[in-house]
């Protein structure tokens, strides 16, 4: 260990000196790596922004544990299960309440354009709001009125005028399944992949709007745990007690499931993953070009070092030293520029673009791996540095 330390402190930093000697090439390499890192950061940034905009419903749910059909895939494809499962859940000690949530996507006539558009209708218990947003909890009396709904002012689509009218107190009406509904209030949630627009109403209104829906088949069960009981234990008892046609998830699991679903099962995740992979490959190619040109340019010197008694491992060390230095020198400008671009993109798209420490460290590791791979390929050229054959 001490020997290694002295070896390192006595060592001439050859890789660094070589890089420093040709500043133009060093700058080229740095900008190449920074460019690759920016590509990767932007892909991850957009993917994460889209994924988190997609879990706003989940995050605002007033529940500790949710119950859903075992086959449920995501919020848009929840399927249904018998309401009886919720009464069974109430048998478990430690469960404080169990509420029904009905979810269904339908076509409605856009109140502004009168065009048929898809909308997601959510029916909940008006006495115990499923969502924590104050704008919703203050309007619970409105949705008790027949055919009255709350509308998301952050919905995607042409709703500006309808929203403006509602805000002025005018009555805005739309049509769902040939029933006229009026907008009784607004809340702010945001569009997701599952729905461009969400309307929230009472369970009774929901069932009136969806005459084919049996009251006994529900989309989501919202369970609250009594303060003081152990959530892990309650959950375990629930799982043991409930039949296999339903599954239970904590809110965190529900959120992560939704993200994972869109990131892995749908083109969106693949598209952004592909973008990040392209960035990575671009980085590998650029760094490989730089490093192998550098090795070629120094073959005679390297062969001389071998003739002086340096081992092959010493030269490998020089190449990897260069790779790591390039990774660090390229990463930080890339990080800085990406933070700036995040701010610009957030302004332009209203998506939440945030640079997290985890992502920065992740991309730094990725950059080191990227440069390491390039270095490893470039070291193959070192074989030409044979002192017996080069002179």
């Amino acid at each position, binding site marked *: 260990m001490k020997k290694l330390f*002295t*070896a390192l*402190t*006595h*060592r*001439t930093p*050859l890789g660094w*000196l*070589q890089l*420093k*000697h040709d500043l133009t090439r060093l700058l080229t390499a740095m900008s190449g790596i920074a460019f690759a890192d920016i590509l990767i950061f932007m892909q991850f940034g957009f993917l994460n922004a889209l994924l988190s905009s997609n879990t706003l419903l989940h995050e605002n749910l007033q529940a500790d544990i949710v119950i859903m059909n075992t086959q449920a895939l995501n919020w848009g494809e929840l399927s249904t299960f018998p309401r009886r499962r919720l009464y069974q859940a109430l048998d478990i000690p430690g469960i404080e309440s169990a509420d029904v949530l009905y979810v269904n996507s339908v076509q409605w006539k856009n109140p502004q354009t009168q065009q048929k558009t898809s909308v997601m209708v959510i029916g909940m218990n008006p006495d115990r709001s499923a969502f924590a947003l104050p704008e919703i909890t203050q309007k619970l009396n409105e949705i008790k009125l027949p055919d009255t709904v709350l509308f998301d002012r952050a919905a995607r689509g042409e709703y500006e005028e309808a929203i403006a009218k509602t805000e002025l107190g005018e009555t805005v009406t739309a049509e769902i399944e040939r029933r006229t509904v009026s907008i009784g209030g607004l809340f702010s949630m945001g569009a997701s992949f599952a729905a461009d627009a969400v309307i929230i109403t009472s369970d009774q209104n929901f069932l009136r709007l969806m005459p084919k829906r049996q009251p006994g088949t529900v989309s989501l069960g919202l369970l609250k745990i009594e303060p003081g009981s152990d959530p892990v234990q309650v959950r375990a008892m629930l799982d043991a007690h409930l039949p296999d046609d339903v599954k239970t998830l904590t809110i965190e699991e529900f959120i992560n499931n939704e993200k994972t679903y869109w990131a892995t099962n749908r083109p969106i995740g693949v598209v952004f993953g592909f973008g990040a992979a392209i960035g990575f490959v671009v980085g590998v190619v650029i760094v490989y070009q730089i490093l192998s040109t550098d090795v070629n340019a*120094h073959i*005679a*010197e390297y*062969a*001389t*070092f*071998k*003739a*002086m*008694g*340096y*081992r092959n491992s010493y030269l490998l060390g020089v190449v990897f030293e260069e790779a790591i230095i390039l990774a660090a020198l390229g990463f930080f400008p890339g990080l800085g520029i990406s933070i700036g671009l995040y701010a610009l993109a957030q302004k332009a798209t209203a998506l939440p673009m945030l640079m997290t420490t985890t992502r920065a460290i992740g991309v730094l590791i990725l950059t080191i791996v990227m440069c390491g791979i390039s270095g490893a390929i470039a070291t193959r050229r070192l074989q030409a540095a044979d*002192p*017996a054959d080069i*002179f």
Partner: protein
Amino acid sequence: MMNKTPVIAVENLDHYFGQGQLRKQVLFGINLEIYAGEIVIMMGPSGSGKTTLLTLVSGLRSAQSGSLKMLGSELCGASQEQLVQARRHNGYIFQAHNLHQSLSALQNVQMGLEVHGTLTRSQMRQKATSILEEVGLGEYIEKYPDNLSGGQKQRVAIARALVAHPAIVLADEPTAALDSKSGRDVVTLMQKLAREQGCTILLVTHDNRILDVADRIVKMEDGRLTANSTVNAVA
């Protein structure tokens, strides 16, 4: 001279290049003994096998058959690691200076010490500085090879080869790329340093003007050593 043990002892050394049909013998039954402190010059036409013999003796190339002893250890059939160790006892001076472009004169010379891993940075710096002063480059130690003349670069290369006090110095046409004046200077310098350090020199050259530094001249022709004449006895 006969009562000393040779630092280099070559016996019946053959060497072949290539494989199968293309296999070609370039060294034939070489016998050569070089004693401590001797300066031996090897001459011979181009392509006669001088460089091949030098790379074998210095451990840059693995010996195939016969016997090749350097400082008592056998290099014929030696492992890579043994060859690496052998190289560390040698100072090799190439026809081209082969200095590292990204390192200053001082850093280049220090590389000759760093390989041994025994000295601290300041000790290395001090030794490298003093040998550069000895070769007359005291004012140039921070200069990069691009800013030095051919003769100065070759002197840095000599300093690099000699800074760790090698037992044997091998030089392959070290003056070929230099004009006659700087060539002469370089050889005189090698002779002086070698005398001071008591090291043995095997020098390949075509240059008739520098033969007077030799204790002994050997001639290579078509892969065979033909003459082994003593010019003047070791003092």
